[in-house]
């Protein structure tokens, strides 16, 4: 099947504007600006069933329709802070299929009446930012960005903005603070960005992959898009596969593909052909899925993954085999979250610090069973009390790891 998002794998040099245009590029944008009302664009996206690809899976068209039309100007922001360990899909899109992403961003901007859109990239993506700047310049030269586009009254500018190396800036309100030049820390929500966003103005924040879906949805229609995937999770998704697999990488597949297909058909199976022990479907923020035949045959869509006690999130599938002890896994994840906790709220700032002490102790073999129960308790004490999702994410692997793989911890503290 031809790719929807990773079309550069089918069409050589798609990252060149003329090639992209030869393949129908920017026709959807021109049609929208010249022949559609903004809310008609939103309606198509709504009808397509597209859900946010950043992790939360919120219906995209519905988010766009929440924009506050009594308060102007509006902004659209692309979240290209891709920092979740195990997630590497947006980078491939931006590097190899940049115009489809930019066209999606432009379409979203038109749909919500924004004349300025920002792409917020993690600081390490400075080369990607430079590349996008070139592509934006190409678009401006070709009259695809700028004043009075296609003879209409609609104008649009796109800007790139580099972060300074903080995972928390992937949280949408911290991201907005960072663009504003402030310390990247999450805001209190509500109000949500569609009501109070960048510079206090109504703002739509979506993931790079989300935007990249939009041009083809506009070109081929909502029905075409819905024909892929499952009723709950329409369309296609890029699965970033990593861990103990033979062929890690990005795989664009329809929602509903099973874990087994991903791991064995596409990923080539497990290194040394060992058995799969656990899967983290959403990067370091994941709950750990205990893998058995039932789990492997579970379709990867938002609702089905939930039946396994986990969330699909950004679909960054980390595969863990029986050579890996789960106490090592959570030591790694907590190390990450302790390092990335912004320090704004108490449970996340202090809880991660504490959990790291405990996992270090357990993993180094100096821990006791008491430390394991304390670790579980501290994680639960954080849950439901943090200011943003980061603190909650930090607890997922800890709680599910200890509860679902108790034997690994027993071994760790005995040794």
């Amino acid at each position, binding site marked *: 099947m031809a790719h929807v998002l990773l079309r550069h794998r089918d069409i050589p040099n798609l990252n060149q504007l003329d090639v992209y245009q030869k393949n129908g590029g920017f026709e959807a944008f021109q049609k929208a600006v010249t022949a559609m009302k903004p809310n008609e664009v939103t309606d198509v996206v709504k009808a397509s069933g597209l859900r946010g690809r950043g992790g939360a899976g919120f219906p995209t068209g519905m988010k766009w329709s929440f924009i506050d039309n009594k308060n102007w100007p509006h902004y659209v922001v692309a979240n290209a802070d891709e920092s979740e360990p195990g997630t590497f899909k947006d980078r491939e899109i931006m590097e190899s299929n940049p115009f489809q992403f930019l066209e999606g961003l432009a379409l979203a901007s038109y749909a919500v009446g924004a004349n300025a859109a920002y792409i917020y990239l993690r600081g390490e993506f400075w080369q990607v930012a430079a590349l996008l700047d070139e592509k934006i310049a190409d678009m401006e030269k070709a009259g695809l960005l700028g004043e009075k586009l296609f003879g209409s009254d609609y104008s649009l500018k796109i800007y790139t903005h580099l972060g300074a190396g*903080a995972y*928390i800036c992937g949280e949408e309100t911290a991201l907005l603070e960072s663009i504003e030049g402030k*310390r990247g820390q999450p805001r*209190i929500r509500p109000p949500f960005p569609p009501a109070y966003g960048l510079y206090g103005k109504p703002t739509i924040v979506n993931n790079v992959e989300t935007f990249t879906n939009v041009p083809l949805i506009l070109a081929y229609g909502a029905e075409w898009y819905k024909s892929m995937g499952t009723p709950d999770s329409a369309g296609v998704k890029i699965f970033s596969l990593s861990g103990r697999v033979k062929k890690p990488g990005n795989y664009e597949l329809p929602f509903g593909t099973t874990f087994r297909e991903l791991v064995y058909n596409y990923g080539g199976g497990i290194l040394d052909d060992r058995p799969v022990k656990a899967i983290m479907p959403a990067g370091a923020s994941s709950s750990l899925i205990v893998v058995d035949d039932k789990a492997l045959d579970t379709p990867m869509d938002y609702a089905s993954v939930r039946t396994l006690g986990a969330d699909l999130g950004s679909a960054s599938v980390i595969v863990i085999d029986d050579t890996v002890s789960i106490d090592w896994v959570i030591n790694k994840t907590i190390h990450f979250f*302790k*390092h*990335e*906790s*912004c*320090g*704004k*709220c*108490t*449970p996340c*700032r*202090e*809880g*991660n*610090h*504490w959990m790291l*002490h405990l996992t270090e102790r357990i993993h180094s073999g100096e821990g006791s069973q008491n430390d394991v129960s*304390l670790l579980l*308790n501290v994680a639960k*004490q*954080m849950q*439901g*009390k*943090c*200011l943003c999702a980061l603190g909650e994410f930090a607890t997922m692997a800890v709680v599910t790891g200890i509860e679902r793989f108790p034997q690994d911890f027993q071994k760790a503290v005995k040794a």
Partner: protein
Amino acid sequence: MTKQLTLTIDGVQVTVPEGTLVVDAAKMAGIDIPVFCYHPKMEPAGNCRMCLVEVGRPVIDRATGQAVMENGQPKIQFMPKLETACTNTVSEGMVVLTQTEKVTEGRKGTLEFLLTSHPLDCPICDKGGECPLQNLTVEHGPGKSRFLYDEKQHLAKHVPLGELIWLDRERCIQCARCIRFQDEIVGEAVLGFEARGRMTQIISLSEPGFDSVFSGNTSDICPVGALTTADFRFGARPWELKASASICSQCPVGCNTTFNTRREAKAGGEIVIKRVMPRQNEEVNEIWMCDKGRFAYHYAESAQRLVKPTVRQAKASWTDAFDLVTQTFEASKSDVVVLASGRLSNEDLFNLKSLADGLGGKSILYTDMGGGNLTAQVGVGQGTDLGKLGKGDTILVVASDLYEEAPVWYLRVKQAADRGATLIVANSRHTKLERFARYAIRYANGDEVKTVADLQGDSKIAQEFANAQNAVVFFGSDGLGLNGSANLAAACAKLLQDTKHVGKANNGLIGVWQRANDQGAWEMGFRPEADLASAFKNKIVYIVGADPAGDDPALALALKGARFIVVQDILETLTTHMADVVLPAQAYTEREGTYTSGERRVQRFYAAVPVHGEAKADFAIAGEIGRRLGLNTENGSAMVTFDRLAASVKDFAGLDTNKLAEVKPQWPIVGRGDLYYGGTTYENKQGLGVQLSTAAERGEAVSLPEVRAESALRPREDQLLAVPVTKLYDRGQTVASTELLTQRIGEPTVSLHPETAKRLGVAAGGRVSLAFNGLSAEALVKIDDTISAGVVLVPRSMGLAVREPVSVQVLGLAEAKVS
């Protein structure tokens, strides 16, 4: 009228205005929801997670818009997680639970988390005993921590953010109250966070460190012992301290304060002041005060204190001193000139005026600023509260640098602008308040009156002033002397009168006086005198609370022409050195009395510490001299003196000391039991004072002087004009003895326009010599490109006696020559 909403908190029905936060609604109902980061004066931050509660809202049927009923009650849907009471606003029918097991566990968890990083050094912590973290841990925390003590992170414990405030990084709980105070309330973002996660720490972003005159307030609202003042740290334990109510005597705002005192071994077992804290008065200083008021109290303990009368510079008994003064006054009567300053209380000034009048002599107010006769007529009306000004109201600040002259007014005017009031800042140069002004007017020196006159007319800004719901005008003496400021006051009074912004609350004229009780001195009938030198000639001069010889060599020379000099003061000065008789006065910390603020609020202060040596209160000394001269002046009780004053000064009619001591409930609630909420600011149990009525609001005829077009000298092509400006930390007697402020006081520094500096061949930090009025002096140079090229700004009370605009010769000095 804001819509009222009713909710239920722990079964108690509470009705509050729409927009109220759950945490405040609970407080209003007497229910404590513990907080660390939330402060009722600031926007919520939601970061400490201490105020977690269960929140439920009525389920609304989407079709009908009606509440869904269940067993005759609205069905309540509770949020799945605990919610922060500081970020949720109330809604109709909301149900809040603050005492459930879930909430208790949440609070306990938050406290356990906070304490994992806390050093638990309460026994040596200045905050111990008045610490929200300590108190809330006792009330809500776990008895034991499960965190290994050895794994605690150790951080620097003695970090100076500036020379006034120290940070203990281990104690900090990252609530950001200090940062938010500086950002939101002061508008000077000089503090910030550095690094992240558990390494997050407060840093100063300014040079010099913590460059704000409000820094001390951050230590009051710090919910732990992280921020302490250099003045008080390791000085005493809060429970050893006694509290005495007072009024700050440093500027005309009249901040309500509390002196904390205790017996001190280092002071030979004497009772001394350990710290000065703000005392709540929402209509005056709210819960804040400036650093000058907080730290510059040490002069009362200075070694230069006068403790015994002297006659011809030799120690003498009070009897001998009184005898000589009385005989001299008796013999000369109408030749007696009483020169008194606004440092004195209303009672002091009343007795001094009675004495001068009784002798048929002259009474002169020692000041370089005029206009006090106008504030009594068209000053702000009773009930004025700058905290109520906002959208639709206009504030004009002209020829005053409020940040330097009356910091808490700066704070309150800035906040009124934040609330939407139109702020007009008119000055000949940039001042800090300008940033918050909707209209910033920069006039040429000499155009002060014209600038105010131009606010009457058809311009947009004039219309905005005329049509304002309420209008308040602050006028000062920035760049002006006595005559210039008097002319300016007249212009401001006319503007207010013509636009009908007089005779009612939140409207009228406020003088940004040079001393705390200048307004009171005007009320008592003291008037300034343009030509002091002539006024001294061949007279019997009785100088009280002033140091003319120290302030201006010309006045020292003039005093030599006096026949007899009596000086009454608290400190030894150049003027006391010239006196025939010196009478030692009590500091205001040692006695009681009242001051009248610039907003004409009469407020009481009380004795906090024992009297130094044989010093007597100024009113008592004047009263005693009066008695000996056969006048019926009170020489014993300040409050009896006040009653007499009230009986004879019209604007004070009907006032008594009980009225001044009346209090009413104030919001936000502060005080000992509510430390966690409002901070360590003292609750006001001693009196909010009473604002005097103006002639305009009593319906009396208002007689305003004719406005003279020329307000002051103008710079000329061929010469530079030195103009005086006020600096908060100066070398005045009451400031200079506070060592802590030495760095902020600095060297005498004049400001030059870049062009002028270039012409003189000096750069910033260089030195110049100045010659004016037959005097010469040296000063450092600061560059200010917002001033006119024709002027040199000279700070007052820094040893350069520029009392009004005066022509000056300036020479650049190549080599630094320390004078």
